[in-house]
């Protein structure tokens, strides 16, 4: 389908035995040519039929599409002898439809039959993306029928945006029916389902990323279903992606801090986030070399890597130099840092080699749970 169809109903949802207005807003997601749109309503008295009074249906004048490019005005009429099919045709051979200038097709006086249920409005379009190759494609949209006086609407969240881990409260109005709420996070996929038939207000579990809510009203013993949806955005969401591409500024590195190491003992830590370990080692001039060894072990104790950084200032004719290094560190691994050097001879002020470590975590250390 090259066109999208947005169906509005008045009343919403339609009620059995009462006239209803169907308003279909037609847009193109990408500009497209159209030369025909056909709507079909299933007629009869059953649950899957919408109306048994097709003669009373009145197609309304089309709004939009007046420009010559857009078809020079559209006509929306009952198609030949068939009482349940309506056709929209441009005055010119074809219309050029865009997303911002929709066509609005309306059917007034569509009286829903007496049987609650869900019928389907069939839509057929003859469209072309280049004006040369034409295709006929079809889709259908649900047309529920609820008993006379049935109300369902006004689904709204409060607040509309929550901080990571916050709750929102949904309220709605609805006549007695079976109400099912389903929700799912935009990226995490975390979600759930709840029967909310006995309430008209519901507090969400803690939300960790932008979440879509879908509230379905169903009538027991019929196929009637009307669905309302809403969205609650989450500030500072947890994000779990497949591919990730950054095209602008990245701020991954959080607040760094020095790690105090006792040079006599191996120092071990388990980072709770990925990051970088930056180290410096400088041996005493004229003494034996000094080393820092970094080992990363997995949960199971397997070695991920081992790196030894050596500073050698044994040649006292040279300017002493330090050896700087940076190694990436993975969350969940066990990092062990060992300093190796020869103890200087005891004296009033023994000169020790220089060791330093800075932990640069990816992400802030003020983590949100």
């Amino acid at each position: 389908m090259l066109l999208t169809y947005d169906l509005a109903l008045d009343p919403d949802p339609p009620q059995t035995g009462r006239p209803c207005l169907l308003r279909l807003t037609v847009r193109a997601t990408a500009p497209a040519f159209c030369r025909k749109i056909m709507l079909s309503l299933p007629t009869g008295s059953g649950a899957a039929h919408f109306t048994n009074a097709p003669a009373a249906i009145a197609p309304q004048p089309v709004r939009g599409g007046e420009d010559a490019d857009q078809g020079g005005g559209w006509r929306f009429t009952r198609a030949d002898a068939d009482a349940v099919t309506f056709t929209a045709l441009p005055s010119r051979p074809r219309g050029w439809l865009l997303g911002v200038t929709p066509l609005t097709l309306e059917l007034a006086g569509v009286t829903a039959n007496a049987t609650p249920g869900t019928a389907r409005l069939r839509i057929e379009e003859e469209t072309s993306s280049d004006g040369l190759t034409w295709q006929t494609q079809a889709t259908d949209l649900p047309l529920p029928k609820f008993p006379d006086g049935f109300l369902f609407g006004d689904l709204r969240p409060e607040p509309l945006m929550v901080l990571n881990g916050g709750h929102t409260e949904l309220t709605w109005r609805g006549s007695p029916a079976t109400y099912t709420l389903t929700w799912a996070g935009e990226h995490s996929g975390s979600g759930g389902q709840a029967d909310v038939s006995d309430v008209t207000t519901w507090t969400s579990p803690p939300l960790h990323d932008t979440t879509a809510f879908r509230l379905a009203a169903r009538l027991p013993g019929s196929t009637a279903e009307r669905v309302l949806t809403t969205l609650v955005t989450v500030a500072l969401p947890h994000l779990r992606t497949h591919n990730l591409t950054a095209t602008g500024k990245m701020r991954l590195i959080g607040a760094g801090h020095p790690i105090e190491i006792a040079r006599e003992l191996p120092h071990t830590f388990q980072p709770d986030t990925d990051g970088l370990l930056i180290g410096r080692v400088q041996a005493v001039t004229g003494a034996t070399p000094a080393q820092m060894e970094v080992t990363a072990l997995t949960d199971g104790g397997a070695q991920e890597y081992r790196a030894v950084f050596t500073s050698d200032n044994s040649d006292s004719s040279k300017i002493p130099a330090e050896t700087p290094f940076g190694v990436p560190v993975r969350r969940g691994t066990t990092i062990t840092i060992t300093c190796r050097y020869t103890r200087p001879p005891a004296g009033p002020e023994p000169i020790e080699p220089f060791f330093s470590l800075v932990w640069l975590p990816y992400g802030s250390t003020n983590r949100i749970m």
Partner: protein
Amino acid sequence: MARGEKVLLRWEASRGPAYTMHWDDHSQSVTGDLSWESPELERTTGFMLQAQLADPGGGAPLIYALTTAVTVTEPNLTVGDLQANGVVRMQAPPAAIAAPPRGQPRYYKAGTDGTILGYLQAASGLPTATLAARVYGAATGGYTMRFSSDNSTGTPTETPISIPIPADTEVRLNHAGNDGDTLNLLWLPRGAGTFDEITPPTA
């Protein structure tokens, strides 16, 4: 829509109630309007149009709301936990860094996270050359890395340089050594952002 664009919302409404548009944690009166243009959107955003009518009987006001959402491509995101299970693309092509002249420290500012990568090779037969990098960050703390190359004897070799740089830090680079030293530095940004020289802060 793309990040930075505005969306135009339209609706149909009866006269009488007060209408308020809510988005993120903002709201604005739209009474009397039948359309509203959003600010420039940075990320997927939910909107709620709320109609409120005072109850003439003095009870609670009558409220009715409609909601919709607009998705934004290439959003600006600030996240809590972050986990990528597929391809991660955040390294951008490298850019040259105007290395500091020998003996004259220079200050730089990082527009995004990245790495300084390069090498230092001291002139053959002369004393040690060093490159000292001091990273200053209000949020990230500071650290120093000092790279040395000594080719006073033996076959001259390069000392590789790799310095991780957080976004928005200021970096002081100082090259001490001799004529004939070779210092070559590249900026490897994550995402998009420059590593530009700035005027040194006055002491």
